[in-house]
């Protein structure tokens, strides 16, 4: 039903398929509101969650989505030490292939790893984050949350705030939002903005207040200190003062702006706890929509007849 067998990234991903996923996800939201939240749609489908990098949230969200669809799931977490010797990647992939797994959800620290995996195995691959490249399911749940809030994506003005250059969330959001007809402005320290932005179809503005005035919603990224080998941000207080979503800053603006955050948050750095807990933040809706949209993705990719072995 979707045009592509895998979900590797949103660059060039058909807009109508993004819409299909979001529409389906809203249906699964309904299932998640039921007293019995489990449906048998993916009975007999085996999915492995292959996590070469720690990610409690994304993994739990995927696992929950799989369990609620009645899929059989296996978790595989590779230690970072075995990863250093990159050979294990191919071995792991071939092992999975030999075990007749139907689908693989993979998180990996290297850009392109998900695509790389498709070269070794026939299973359906869902990219749960490949290094600083893409995190398509996060972007889809973000778009679903915006859709829920505004009833549309076309014409929305979205600010993405923070470390853009190291962010797979930012890149997938940019691809997804622009292809769905939203306008995107990125905002952050100039050294955390990619130097080459042509044909990303985004605006750049380093003045957060102007971006707040302009935008309907802000997607606030985690400032990932551990990702930065060298001191790219002088200090927490400088970041907070310049790019932090603080209550004082929001108070200066007369509008009610929607705040999103992919989590985990650094409260008091990129976002104030007070803002995160306020009504304008839809951070917990994002979490729920994360399960629903991952259910939709799994359902649409793994549910088709052709994809399931003997039936």
């Amino acid at each position, binding site marked *: 039903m979707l045009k592509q067998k895998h979900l590797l990234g949103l660059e060039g991903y058909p807009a109508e398929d993004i819409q299909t996923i979001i529409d389906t996800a809203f249906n699964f939201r309904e*299932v998640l509101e039921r007293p019995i939240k489990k449906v*048998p749609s993916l009975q007999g489908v085996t999915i492995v969650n292959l996590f070469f990098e720690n990610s409690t949230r994304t993994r739990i969200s995927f696992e929950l989505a799989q369990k609620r669809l009645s899929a059989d799931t296996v978790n595989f977490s590779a230690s970072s030490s075995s990863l250093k010797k990159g050979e294990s990647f191919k071995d792991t992939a071939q092992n999975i292939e030999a075990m007749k797994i139907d689908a693989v959800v993979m998180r990996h620290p290297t850009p392109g790893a998900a695509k790389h995996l498709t070269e070794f195995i026939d299973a359906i691959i869902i990219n749960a984050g490949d290094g600083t490249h893409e995190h398509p399911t996060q972007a889809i749940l973000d778009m679903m949350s915006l859709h829920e809030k505004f009833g549309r994506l076309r014409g929305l003005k979205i600010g993405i705030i923070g470390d853009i250059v190291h962010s797979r969330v930012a890149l997938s959001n940019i691809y997804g939002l622009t292809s769905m007809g939203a306008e995107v402005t990125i905002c952050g320290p100039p050294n955390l903005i990619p130097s080459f932005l042509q044909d990303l179809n985004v605006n750049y503005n380093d003045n957060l207040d102007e971006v707040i005035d302009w935008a309907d919603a802000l997607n606030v990224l985690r400032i990932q200190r551990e990702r930065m080998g060298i001191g790219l941000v002088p200090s927490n207080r400088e970041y907070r003062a310049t790019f932090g979503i603080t209550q004082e800053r929001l108070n200066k603006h007369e509008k009610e702006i929607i705040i999103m955050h992919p989590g985990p948050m650094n409260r008091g750095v990129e976002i104030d706890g007070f803002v995160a807990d306020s009504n304008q933040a839809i951070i917990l809706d994002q979490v729920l929509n994360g399960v629903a949209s991952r259910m939709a993705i799994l359902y649409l990719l793994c549910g088709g007849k052709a994809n399931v072995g003997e039936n």
Partner: protein
Amino acid sequence: MKEKVLMDEIAVERSITRLCHEILEHNRTPENIVLIGIHNRGVPLAARIKLKISEFIGIDLEQGSLDITFHRDDFRERLQVPEVKETDISFSLDGKVVILVDDVLYSGRTVRAALDELNSFGRAAKVQLAVLVDRGHRELPIKADYVGKNIPTNDGEHVSVLLKETDGNDNVLLIKGVE
């Protein structure tokens, strides 16, 4: 495509009334009955049955609804964006007589899916099935306990139930020339 009206508003009304009588005849302790409508048209049908029974014997039965979209075993044949409706069963089924209500009984797969899903909500004492129309062509060993009207159909024929609540009028149509 040719349409033929098999039941008009009055006939539909009569059938529902008869269903209610049969239900009450077969169940000596009507307060133990719960009605579960299967989306889409099973839900308003269940509501009408509830209303009539209340008129007849003065008991308000519990009523719920079931969405079986994800429980159908044939979704892999025709994967599409599911149109999910609410599943609302806010009471326990333990020890109850559950009457599943649907508009048309055909292959039996919808009912099988409903039975399947119902399992999650507890252990009913009995499950019975009430349908407005039975058009035959079963693919599973499933039989309705209460049938408003039997309408044998041939290949290329389709029965369409219209209800005021969902379609604006009460009519049962036989449609010919369907693929």
